[in-house]
């Protein structure tokens, strides 16, 4: 069964090549234009924002500034975390400015709207920081490449080791919007299929200032683990409150989505020891340190995982254009999926047919105050989670290469 599927796949790729190669060789309107869309000034600006623009600029410079003899241009815009603003901007980019691919992409709501516009126009979405797994499952598209991480990897990476360690009763404090719901649902699936039990959940409105009420409810549930299915300021606030009310002493608190700068902003006495999953950490080895040093010199902070991802996928995209000899989306995507990305960010990596970039994820522990040697010394890597374990199998209906 398996070899046959594989040969079918290769054949499909070959046909796709032949067709698109014949149709649209060369670079459309004599340039390759990459748009970077992200929240530039709002709650998610630190995890992508201008840093993603910097990362893409670095990639283009490292690539040499031109591909197939044509210039590579970058435009960027602020989506303010609003789906309508983001999709309108991207529509304008593809309809009147000749943008070939959109990088960045943070809030899942914006990404959902933007990928629809891009798919309609046959342009590529390079998703760096969105968490939802929808873009490679129920809302999958042959033009999506989802790079850094997703909720499935977070749940598998963080939840499963804790279950294995005997923490069976779980309580969720969930951000009451699509991302939080998805994270809770996926994590609940992991818990139930590994002999655990969810004893309760509360849904806190996005941007809740005071979590004490929810922390009390978690406390009285008798759970072993209180999982925080939220992000950004919600995560920081809920964790601080949990520590204040002594919840961290009676139960484990697990942050399901924690970015380096969130961990950095927290008091090491509160956050120290917490385990979490990340797609990248700057201080992992010489390669990551070298790139991160360059990034910090330009941007002022260490890179967040989505910013490193933005660089990695820009490189992979540009290399694919070079090999395909065209910026036609179908041809480029076929090469991107054929060649394995391999750089300081993408380890043991592959861009699957469904658009999911599967790579090594890392379970890390937030360092305590006395373990830290400088302000950027935040995580200690506990274990490497192989990509296929973290991201799980692909859905058949999203296997675009096979369908063609």
């Amino acid at each position: 069964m398996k070899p046959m599927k594989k040969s079918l796949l290769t054949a499909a790729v070959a046909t796709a090549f032949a067709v698109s190669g014949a149709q649209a060789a060369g670079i459309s309107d004599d340039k390759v234009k990459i748009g970077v869309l992200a929240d530039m000034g709002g709650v998610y600006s630190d995890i992508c924002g201008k840093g993603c623009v910097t990362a893409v600029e670095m990639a283009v410079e490292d690539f040499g500034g031109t591909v197939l003899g044509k210039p590579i241009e970058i435009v960027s815009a602020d989506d303010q975390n609003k789906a309508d603003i983001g999709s309108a901007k991207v529509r304008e980019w593809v309809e009147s400015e000749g943008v070939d691919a959109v990088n960045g992409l943070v809030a899942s709501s914006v990404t959902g709207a933007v990928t629809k516009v891009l798919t309609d126009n046959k342009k590529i979405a390079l998703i760096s920081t969105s968490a939802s797994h929808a873009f490679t499952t129920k809302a999958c598209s042959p033009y999506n490449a989802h790079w850094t991480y997703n909720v499935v990897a977070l749940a598998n990476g963080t939840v499963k080791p804790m279950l294995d360690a005997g923490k069976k009763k779980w309580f969720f404090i969930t951000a009451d919007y699509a991302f939080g719901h998805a994270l809770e649902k996926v994590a609940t699936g992991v818990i139930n299929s590994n002999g655990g039990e969810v004893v309760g959940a509360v849904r806190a409105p996005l941007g809740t200032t005071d979590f004490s009420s929810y922390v009390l409810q978690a406390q009285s549930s008798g759970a072993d683990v209180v999982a925080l299915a939220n992000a950004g300021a919600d995560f920081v606030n809920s964790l601080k409150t949990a520590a204040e009310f002594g919840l961290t002493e009676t139960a484990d608190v697990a942050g399901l989505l924690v970015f380096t700068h969130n961990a950095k902003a927290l008091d090491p006495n509160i956050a120290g020891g917490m385990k979490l999953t990340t797609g990248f950490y700057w201080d992992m080895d010489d390669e990551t340190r070298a790139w991160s040093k360059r990034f910090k010199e330009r941007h002022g902070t260490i890179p967040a995982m989505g910013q490193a991802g933005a660089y990695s996928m820009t490189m992979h995209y540009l290399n694919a254009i070079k090999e395909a000899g065209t910026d036609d989306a179908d041809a480029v995507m076929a090469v991107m999926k054929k060649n394995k990305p391999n750089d300081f960010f993408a380890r043991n990596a592959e861009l699957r047919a469904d658009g999911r970039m599967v790579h090594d994820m890392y379970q890390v522990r937030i360092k305590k105050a006395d373990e830290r040697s400088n302000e950027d010394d935040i995580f200690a890597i506990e274990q490497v989670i192989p990509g296929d374990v973290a991201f799980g199998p692909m859905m058949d209906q999203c296997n675009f290469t096979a369908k063609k």
Partner: protein
Amino acid sequence: MKISKSAVALVALGLVAPFVLYPVFVMKVLCFALFACAFNLLLGYVGLLSFGHAAFLGTGGYITGYMMMEAGLTPELGILCGTGAAAALGAVYGKLAVKREGIYFAMVTLALAQLAFFVYLQAPFTGGEDGMQGVPRGHLFGLIDLSDNMNMYYFVFAIFLFGFWVVNRTIHSPFGQILKAIRENEPRAISLGYNVNDYKWAAFVISSALAGLAGSTKTLVFQLASLTDAHWHMSGEVVLMTLLGGMGTIFGPIVGAGAVVTIQNYLSGGELGNYIHIIMGLIFVICVLAFRSGIVGEFQKFMKKNFS
């Protein structure tokens, strides 16, 4: 006479605009201009500051989106449904709100709009924070393909002109004269035997229906209905547009909406993105301190002083 000349200029401008500017951008301006005109009908001509008009914009958008996606209606019927739903909501909210005046009116409308926002946040059909995505533009009367930007543009422009005409017709009708009388001297209007609250209510319903029309059209243009349109920040934004353009003037809201949308568009793309709040705030402060009649109002004053 002057009005009709300006109106001709407006129509001419609208007809050529999509050849000069990016059509979707102009459509966005038109949607917000209609929204601001609807709002101005209440603030500028009845003297009622509604701080909850986003509820009607959002309702129009969501209902149109739902009808087109789930019931498969054609665009004109979808818009009709959205507008009707906004008018119905306006009828209920208006009934409750017009009993109050001044700041209380503003706060009641804000509170009611927050309730509507909550429903849209929680109801499954709206898609919550994700919004309602992928609304088809469809074929107008089942014939004209609106996915073509030019077709869509002239459809939106026609809707805008219709809305603008309704506002003007209302202002210049005997009904509009009574509204103005209420604004200037409410006790006197009451003593003349007018049932003031009924008039205010009727104006409120017209205004909310037109706000709903703007929301419905916007959903079609962007193929998306989202919580942004129902959020109280949107209610604040329409106040800014009206104030900047000149409240109580016919063309003020259009100019104001054009200016605000242009500024936002310009800022979101450039290096100044971070300053968007600061610049919007400065506009508010400068408008209030230095030119309260807005762009159009100041311009009219200037013309009167120098040319008549």
